[in-house]
């Protein structure tokens, strides 16, 4: 078969050449491997990284989005390694399949910062993340305090709580739920309705409507994320019962959860920090050969109507 | 004394209640070409299929090289040295030429698992050289789909001969070949004869029959009419055998036919040409001119591949605006460009395949009847169901359609009634010119005559009717004029008084063609 050979070779050379980054002297190139940009929270993470890096002209960040495909993220990490980045920041989709490429990068001498979701083992420079379990527990503790103030509960009735879960095959949802339940152990609280709303607002609304139809009295709704809490609020509002229910969510993005708190939709939302800014700052430290901690747990804030203007309140 | 390769004795075949072959005997000697001739439906294809092992159940015996055999499947037949080159090509487009030729007989190594490409190529190359098929080694490696139809024919032949067959059946092998290629095929046939093969050759074309045949056998209505050496069976005899003496005597115009009077031409086609898709292929219809007057019924007679169907499709605009020549309806020139435009100009076309292209079987009868007239019946785009129902009921009465209700699904009707629904659809468009392709196909005898009566009364009302039919009695009984087509060209025009079955069939087979191709 006579295939045109010359253009093919030309294309191949161009492809290989374009994969290598132009190295300006004095500039550090950081690769950011994000598992997906479908969740607004991850969009926020990338935005935080971008904003933090903008303040440092000696840093250049290259973003790659794996669109929630494990194999694609693996390939993208390998691409970063092959093109010789100075540092790699990665937020992996899953731990096990992405541990080998991350470890490979680390062993080749590229510093690795793992953000938000873990890899297995310890072949990385630093892990930065928040602890979903602690956040869930804090939410549960806060909920208990608020529930104890309700007149019905003061008179001895058990509080009635609805839990709207995130996608329960994902670790964040499992951890948030587990923390919440841990805080509620032994307390006079019944979780009268539980449903998996898969992090989606319309689904949360559907489930809340069912809960409202079945339960005559609901005291508090705990949703694993703010869109879920908002969907539940809309359902309660349509039924005219929103004033009787306390709504609690997690994420506390400035344009979402915090706004809802300011508008009186949510009674409280718990920040799940992205860690983008911290990652960039620690990346600079690493590149300047300063030492950093191996495990960094980000602190979280709670936003309530009282403190939202002031930027929330740090937990513990 | 040459060997007798093949002896078929008293072969019979029935499909349900339908007897297709009745006690046919046929033999074949080494080194001869034995032509098998007959009209459509005479039973030729069925006989060949029995020989090829496609119909293991049949009456009669098959004797090959002295042994009586019954083939259980085509593979057995081919292993016994019988090779059939069908009309429909059986090549795999995406495979190479060499792979196609060796299909089913691949060269294999290591216990039959690994494909030995080189051995295959060499074997095929040797075969092609032996048959003078002019394929280079590079050609053999290219994919079959890259070659035009005529070359694919040659590949098909090579494939049939790759297994060292001794009995070779060729079914209309020249239908897509040009003059030079036909000559090469005939040279190949000589080559095969010289090597001791026997060839059964099926064709409609007079010029070919007398070019290649050593002997001719004619089938009619499933029976063998006669077998003779080519020299002892001149064309008139051949045609008489194909049609049958009794039929020729039976034909007579029915009483009470309206007298032919002077007519104004309603439909005129001048130098009409229908091209074939693809480069370098001869047109389906070439330079046809016909004028049909109001009240006239003109029939078109042609054998397979003559171009009758393509003519009507082209005139109706089914192919788009690709045809050459001029068409006029009632004096005003029209350009055949789309079915919708043709319907608006008063042209209607009943296709030959009602299930495939004539009716929407899933829709009700009344919706099928109104389908071609919707634009006229719904001026503001809104349907008028009452109007549709009464239209359908009118035609149910006029055509005698048997059904439960006009709301019934059309697929539930019998074939003959379905044909009437299709006819009703076109009559509902109030056409000026009616093109009918096989209007009585699959219709029982009673209904046939009803349709004939209807067509004559429509003609009497002033419609111009053009008709394709493969049933000679139908053409002869119905039409004022008959046009014979052969290979896309007009080979004969016969007035009612001058038309006889022999003449029409001869013209359709190309016998009277001035070129004698």
């Amino acid at each position: 078969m006579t295939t045109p050979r010359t253009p093919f070779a030309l294309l191949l050379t161009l492809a290989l050449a374009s994969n290598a980054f132009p190295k300006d002297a004095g500039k550090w190139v950081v690769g950011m491997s994000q598992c997906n940009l479908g969740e607004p929270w991850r969009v926020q993470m990338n935005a935080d990284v971008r904003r933090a890096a903008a303040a440092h002209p000696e840093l250049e960040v290259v973003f790659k989005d794996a669109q929630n495909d494990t194999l694609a993220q693996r390939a993208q990490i390998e691409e970063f390694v092959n093109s010789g980045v100075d540092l790699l920041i990665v937020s992996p989709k899953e731990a096990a399949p992405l541990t080998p490429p991350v470890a490979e990068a680390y062993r080749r001498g590229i510093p690795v910062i793992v953000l938000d979701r873990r890899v297995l083992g310890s072949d990385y420079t630093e892990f930065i993340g928040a602890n979903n379990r602690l956040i869930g527990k804090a939410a549960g503790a806060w909920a208990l305090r608020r529930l104890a103030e309700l007149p019905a509960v003061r008179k001895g009735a058990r509080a009635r709580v609805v839990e709207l879960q995130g996608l329960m095959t994902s670790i964040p949802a499992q951890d948030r739920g587990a923390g919440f339940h841990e805080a509620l152990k032994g307390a006079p609280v019944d979780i009268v309705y539980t449903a998996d709303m898969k992090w989606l607002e319309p689904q949360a609304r559907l489930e809340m409507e069912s809960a409202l139809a079945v339960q005559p009295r609901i005291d508090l709704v705990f949703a694993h994320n703010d869109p879920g809490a908002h969907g539940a609020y809309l359902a309660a509002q349509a039924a005219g019962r929103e004033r009787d229910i306390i709504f609690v969510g997690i994420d506390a993005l400035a344009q979402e959860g915090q706004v809802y708190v300011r508008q009186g939709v949510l009674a409280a939302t718990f920040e799940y920090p992205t860690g983008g800014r911290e990652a960039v700052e620690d990346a600079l430290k690493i590149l300047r050969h300063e030492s950093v901690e191996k495990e960094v747990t980000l602190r979280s804030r709670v936003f309530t109507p009282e403190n939202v203007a002031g930027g929330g309140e740090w937990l513990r | 004394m040459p060997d007798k390769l093949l002896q078929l004795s008293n072969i019979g075949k029935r499909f349900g209640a339908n007897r297709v072959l009745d006690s046919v005997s046929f033999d074949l000697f080494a080194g001869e070409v034995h032509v098998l001739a007959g009209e459509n439906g005479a039973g030729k294809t069925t006989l060949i299929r029995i020989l090829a092992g496609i119909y293991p159940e049949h009456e009669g015996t098959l004797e090959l090289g002295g042994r009586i055999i019954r083939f259980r499947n085509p593979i057995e037949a081919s292993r016994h040295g019988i090779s059939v080159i069908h009309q429909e090509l059986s090549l795999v487009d995406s495979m190479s030429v060499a792979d196609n030729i060796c299909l089913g007989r691949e060269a294999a190594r290591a216990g039959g698992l690994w494909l030995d490409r080189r051995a295959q190529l060499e074997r095929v190359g040797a075969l092609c050289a032996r048959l003078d098929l002019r394929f280079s080694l590079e050609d053999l490696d290219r994919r079959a789909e890259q070659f035009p139809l005529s070359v694919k024919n040659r590949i098909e032949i090579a494939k049939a001969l790759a297994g060292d067959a001794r009995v070779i059946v060729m079914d209309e092998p020249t239908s897509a070949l040009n003059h030079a290629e036909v000559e090469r095929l005939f040279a190949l046939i000589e080559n095969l004869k010289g090597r001791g093969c026997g060839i059964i050759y099926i064709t409609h074309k007079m010029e070919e029959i007398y070019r290649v045949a050593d002997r001719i056998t004619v089938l009619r209505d499933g029976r063998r009419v006669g077998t003779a050496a080519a020299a002892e069976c001149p064309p008139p005899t051949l045609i008489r055998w194909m049609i049958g003496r009794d039929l020729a005597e039976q034909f007579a115009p029915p009483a009470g036919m309206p007298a032919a009077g002077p007519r104004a031409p309603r439909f005129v086609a001048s130098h009409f040409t229908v091209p074939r898709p693809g480069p370098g292929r001869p047109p389906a219809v070439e330079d046809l001119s016909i004028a049909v007057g109001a009240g006239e019924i003109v029939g078109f007679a042609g054998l397979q591949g003559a171009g009758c169907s393509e003519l009507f499709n082209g005139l109706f605009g089914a192919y788009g605006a690709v045809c050459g020549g001029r068409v006029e309806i009632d004096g005003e020139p029209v350009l055949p460009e789309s079915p919708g435009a043709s319907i608006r100009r008063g042209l209607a076309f009943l296709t030959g395949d009602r299930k495939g292209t004539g009716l929407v079987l899933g829709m009700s009868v009344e919706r099928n009847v109104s389908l071609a007239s919707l634009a006229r019946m719904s001026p503001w785009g809104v349907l008028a169901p009452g109007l549709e129902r009464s239209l359908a009921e009118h035609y149910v009465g006029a055509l005698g359609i048997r059904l439960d209700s006009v709301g019934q699904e059309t697929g539930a009707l019998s074939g003959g009634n379905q044909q009437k629904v299709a006819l009703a659809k076109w009559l509902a468009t109030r056409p000026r010119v009616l093109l009918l392709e096989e209007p009585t196909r699959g219709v029982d005898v009673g209904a046939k005559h009803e349709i004939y009566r209807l067509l004559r009364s429509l003609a009497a009302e002033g419609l111009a009717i053009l008709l394709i039919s493969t049933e000679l009695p139908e053409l002869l009984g119905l039409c004022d004029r008959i046009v014979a087509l052969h290979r896309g060209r007009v080979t004969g025009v016969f007035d009612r008084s001058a038309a006889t079955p022999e003449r029409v069939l001869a013209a359709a087979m190309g016998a009277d063609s001035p070129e004698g191709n």
Partner: protein
Amino acid sequence: MRTLRRWIERPEGRALFALLFILAIGCVFNAHDAFFRWGTHRDMLRQVSVYGILACGMTLVIVTGGIDLSVGSVLGLCAVVFAQLSLHRGQPAVLAVPAVLAVGAAAGLASGAAVARFRIQPFIATLAMMVFARGLAKWLSGGEKVSRALQQPDGSFAYLDLPGAFERLDAKVWGGNVAVVTLVFLGCVALSWVVLTRLRYGRYLYATGGNEEAARLSGVPVRRAKLLAYGLSGVFSAVAGICQAAQEQQGDPEAGVSYELTAIAIAVIGGNSLAGGRGGVGLTLLGAMTIGYLEKILSINAVAESSRLMLTGAIILAAVLLQRRRVA
């Protein structure tokens, strides 16, 4: 009994039978009488309305023998555009709504042109539009939800008022007994019904799906009919996107993911044949209610997610098997 048999032989009868079957299940598993309260039914209708609007457009396309995989993505695209025009830029509904419908129509016509003019298979053509529209939605919205929180130049967020259109669409009328989006859904059903049964072009859709070549040779403008079907599907997707945005109070570029599968399921469970040429939007309405009730019953009984998925799959299969025509 014979009338019952005759009734079962019609597709509407079978669809109704499937729906009654599901309702019976609901009466048995009524979650402490929740199934007998009108609010539950009203909410079910609200929830299924967006899917039902998509299914109306899908029905038109299925009747022509095609399929439209892009309806979910076009919904997301239109939700984004509507939120941007109406919420962020404060355009009045009389301007925003027609603009969004035009966007949906354009997407539908593009798919239709690919199918009708360029003879691309509907599955492939609408798959391409599905991917393209989703990407366009994300690009227009910057990857974020177009919500009431609008980022100011100084980085803070202002909370915008909800436009009247949003409030009116998400409201309930007639004494709070019917959601407005349910009325929009029923309006779409009525419009589709008129097109399919009363208009000449509706007949063209059936003929094209039943036997395209026979239709073409009978003078049916097959290309234009297909363009109409896909174009209307795009318009319905836009309507669904507007309703979705109103109910979420935001334009989410991720809205509508996998909705096309639910729309197809609704059409098929109702009894429309994917081969084309038969069926109608009445069947779609019955299918929407069947699927809506199924989901609602599982929800009020707080059935676990894994069981829900398995039960839904099994019941869809059972409903379709119950519907099979005995071929004449």
